[in-house]
Every structure is written in structure tokens, then in C-alpha cells.
């Protein structure tokens, strides 16, 4: 019997994940429900690709309101929580995830806020009920960081982390570096291209990076830190003169999130040597894990958008594998 999945959140990621599941990309999973902000559609027999073509609100059987009853009534086995990040509460995603975990329903999410704000509480809940909580899509888009630690680095210890975890600020700083743009012009360009939000505060003031850093510190390094433990400085004060002075000295200004060996979490614009492997440009992300035995390990990739679907689907595969319901097909 297939796992019955609910995709909660029907934006950029939700649509792509729902379509992937409806087209059978992950064997052993049946997409039975999709929810957006105004309501949800529930098809116990499974939603088809055709049904996902248009606006789900126009489908017969669309129910207005929250899909939380599907979790409460045990109508799904897997919650894929893809609602937008909401600070400072993490809601409504936090309530959805808690409701699912407390009923033994597995959770895959790409929503940073609940994992960053309530990591300890959610992992304890997950442990107590045996439900899985997977969140690779919350950090680094398609770059496997959390699962890399879980599956490939179990015999080593992560001593420190540093990296570029936000594509929007990296795009702005890269345009300032290569084209000599002012911060304001580069931001406006990023907004016009859809890379920056209309309200870019979360990105440019460093909060998005701080949330991701917090997730890595707690999950990859096993720390117990909270958002108020992170020293956060954004990039809005970085001037074209500063970027140009850095460039003359063979350096680039980058918004760096770092966890030091003594457990201090910092987000700040820093100077990075142009030949440092984390000195990537455009919307790319790069993260270096410093390992006790293996030394430095750096991963580079797109930190948002379509590549995040890869992380989400891999987590869904992991749920299917753990639940032992893989129906024959194998991943490539």
C-alpha cells in the first residue's frame, strides 16, 4: 500500500513537488491531497496530473479552510509542508508539523522557520512518536547538507561551518563586485529579476541566513542554539567603495554565516579571498564543513528555486525507504 501524501503549500515548490508525485516520480507514494492558503482538495484515490493543471480551487470537492483535519483524522501518512516562512512565529507550518508528528505522521518540509525556531521540540516529538522529520530543503536548496552529515560523515565530527547561504544577497554583492553597482541599484535589479522579494528585509538583513545557519548548527553540529544566539549583521550598509576596496586587495565582500569551533553563530558581511572555494558568485550558495578527520569539505550549488525540489523529493524517497514500502522501482 502506498503512503498517502499531503502537499501543503501550493506555490513555486508545492506545484512542482505535487506534479512530480502525481506523475509517479517517487514509487510508493500516492498524492491524495493538496492545500493552498484558501483551502484544500482531498482525493483518497489519488490526484491526477490533469487535476493539477489548473487552479485547484476550481476542482470539484475543493474545501475552504485549513487541511489540518486531514492530519487529525489520519487521512494522510506523510505531510509535505511547503508553506512560506513566517517570522517570528513559524506559523501555521509549526502547528501543522506538530499535529502530524504527534500523530505519528511523517513530515518532509522546506519551511525554515519551524525547524529553526523549534528544532529541539520537534525532534523530541518525532523521536517520541517514531514519525520522521526530514528538512533537507530548508538549507542550501539542492545541496545535500543535512543528509550528507547523516549518511556520509557519521564517522567524523563537524568542528565548524561557514558559508554563503543566501542567493539573493550573493547576487547583489556579486553585481556590486563585478559591475560596480551601488547596493540600491543591485537590489532593484534583483527585485526586477524576481531574485529579491518586494520586501527584501529577511534576506538583506541576514535573517534568512541566520535561520539556515541555526538549522545547520543544531542538526549538523548537534548544538542547541536559538535565533537570539545568532549575531546578525546584514548587507544594507555595504557601499560600492567598500566592495571596490576589497576587490583591489584580491577579496570579495560576501554575507557569511559561520559557526565557530567554540559554538558561536555569526552572520555578517565578511571579506573572502577570491580563491577561497566558498567565494562563489551570482545566486550560488557554498558551504564548508571543517571536519576533525577529513579536513575541509566544500559544497557548491544553487541555494533556492527548482533545485530545492531535488532535496524535497529525496527526503520523500527516504520516508518511503524507511517505511519499507518501496514498490520495486529504484532511484538512479
Amino acid at each position, binding site marked *: 500500500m502506498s503512503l498517502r501524501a499531503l502537499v501543503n503549500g501550493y506555490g513555486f515548490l508545492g506545484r512542482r513537488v505535487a506534479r512530480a508525485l502525481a506523475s509517479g516520480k517517487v514509487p510508493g507514494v500516492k498524492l491524495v491531497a493538496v492545500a493552498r492558503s484558501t483551502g484544500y482538495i482531498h482525493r483518497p484515490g489519488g490526484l491526477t496530473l490533469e487535476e493539477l493543471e489548473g487552479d485547484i480551487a476550481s476542482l470539484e470537492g475543493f474545501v475552504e479552510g485549513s487541511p489540518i483535519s486531514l492530519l487529525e483524522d489520519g487521512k494522510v501518512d506523510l505531510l509535505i509542508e511547503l508553506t512560506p516562512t513566517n517570522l517570528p512565529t513559524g506559523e501555521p507550518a509549526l502547528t501543522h508539523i506538530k499535529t502530524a508528528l504527534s500523530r505519528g505522521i511523517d513530515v518532509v518540509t522546506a519551511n525554515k522557520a519551524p525547524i529553526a525556531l523549534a528544532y529541539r521540540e520537534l525532534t523530541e516529538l518525532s523521536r517520541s512518536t517514531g514519525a520522521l522529520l526530514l528538512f533537507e530543503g530548508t538549507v542550501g536548496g539542492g545541496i545535500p547538507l543535512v543528509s550528507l552529515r547523516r549518511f556520509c560523515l557519521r564517522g567524523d565530527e563537524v568542528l565548524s561551518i561557514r558559508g554563503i547561504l543566501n542567493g539573493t544577497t550573493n547576487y547583489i554583492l556579486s553585481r556590486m563586485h563585478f559591475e560596480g553597482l551601488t547596493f540600491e541599484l543591485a537590489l532593484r535589479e534583483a527585485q526586477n529579476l524576481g531574485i529579491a522579494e518586494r520586501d527584501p528585509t529577511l534576506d538583506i538583513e541576514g535573517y534568512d541566513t541566520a535561520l539556515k545557519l541555526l538549522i545547520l548548527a543544531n542538526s549538523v553540529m548537534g548544538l542547541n542554539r536559538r535565533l537570539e544566539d545568532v549575531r546578525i549583521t546584514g548587507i544594507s*550598509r555595504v557601499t560600492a567603495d567598500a566592495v571596490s576596496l576589497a576587490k583591489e586587495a584580491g577579496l570579495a565582500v560576501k554575507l557569511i554565516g559561520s559557526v565557530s569551533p567554540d559554538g558561536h553563530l555569526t552572520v*555578517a558581511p565578511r571579506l573572502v579571498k577570491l580563491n577561497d572555494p566558498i567565494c562563489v558568485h551570482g545566486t550560488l550558495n557554498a558551504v564548508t564543513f571543517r571536519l576533525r578527520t577529513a579536513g575541509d569539505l566544500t559544497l557548491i550549488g544553487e541555494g533556492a528555486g527548482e533545485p530545492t525540489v531535488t532535496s524535497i523529493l529525496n527526503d520523500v524517497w527516504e520516508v518511503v525507504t524507511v517505511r519499507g514500502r518501496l514498490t520495486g522501482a529504484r532511484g538512479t
Partner: protein
Amino acid sequence: MPMKDICRDLTASAMPPVRVRLTCALVDRPGTLLRTLEQIALAGGNIISIVHSRESITSGYVPVSINVEFPDAQSLERARRGIESVGVPVIGAESLEKSLRTVIVLGSGELGDLIRAVEGLGLKIVDASVRGGGSELTARLTLEVPEGAAGHDLMRRLEEVAADRGYLLLSEV
């Protein structure tokens, strides 16, 4: 000599020397300093200078700072153990190596004030480049910073000093 030993010798000779300031607490008694220096020499250390602060005598102990160049870190460790084996506590071993670090400082203020603040921490500015006019200052400073924990601590204090004055300080990762 077997090839294994030759390789070990070559590796050893390729290791960089270690320059440190050893601070020892000597009992104010003739011969104690000599016994300490003997242990350094036995470990292969080359003494650069000695500061014997007899005026800082506390509870019968005199702090002595000895700047030494050792061929490698193992020699330093041998010397430290040797000194302690003759009954002299080693109360500090601070690296004398310096590295150059670049910082960029942004904010409204006077360059002179910023330089005084940096130098007040004991950091030496070896190069400076300034942009901007009026009250907005953007300065790139190249600083000589001690290696190791002492340098790390100084950079952290520099960040605090800059923040206190309302500057944004960009430091190297």
C-alpha cells in the same frame, strides 16, 4: 641510514620554526634562570631575548619572559616539559609569529579616531587606503596581527571597538 629515517629527517627539516615568548615564574634564587635556559638549549631552542622583571616579584616569584625560536612545535613541547621538570612553572607561551589581515571599516567618523582605536589595541597598521568624502568614511586597513588565540582575541576586540563607535567592520574569514 634507512630510507624511512631519511624521509623523516627531510620532513622534520621542512617544518617551519616556531617563535614564541615563554613566560616562566622563577623562584628568586641564584641558578634558577640558568637551569631554565639549559632546558631550552637541550630542546634545541635558540634564545632571542630575555626580560627578567625583578621589580615585578610576587610571593617570591619573578616573572621572566624568554623569546625563543624552536626548530618545530615538538621542540617547544620538550622544552616546556624540561623547564617544568626542574621545578619552574611555565605560565605562558605566546606566539611571536605575525600575519597580515585586511579589514574594511565603514561609517561616519574621523580617520584619526579610527586609527587611534586600532593602535590602542596594540595592532600595527602596515597599509591604509581610504575612499569617500565628507562624514562617510570607508577605509581598508592592513594589520599586523599575532598568530593564534592572541590574534583571534585582538580581532574580536577590534570588532567590539568598531561597533561601539558605530562602524561596520568587514574582516577576513
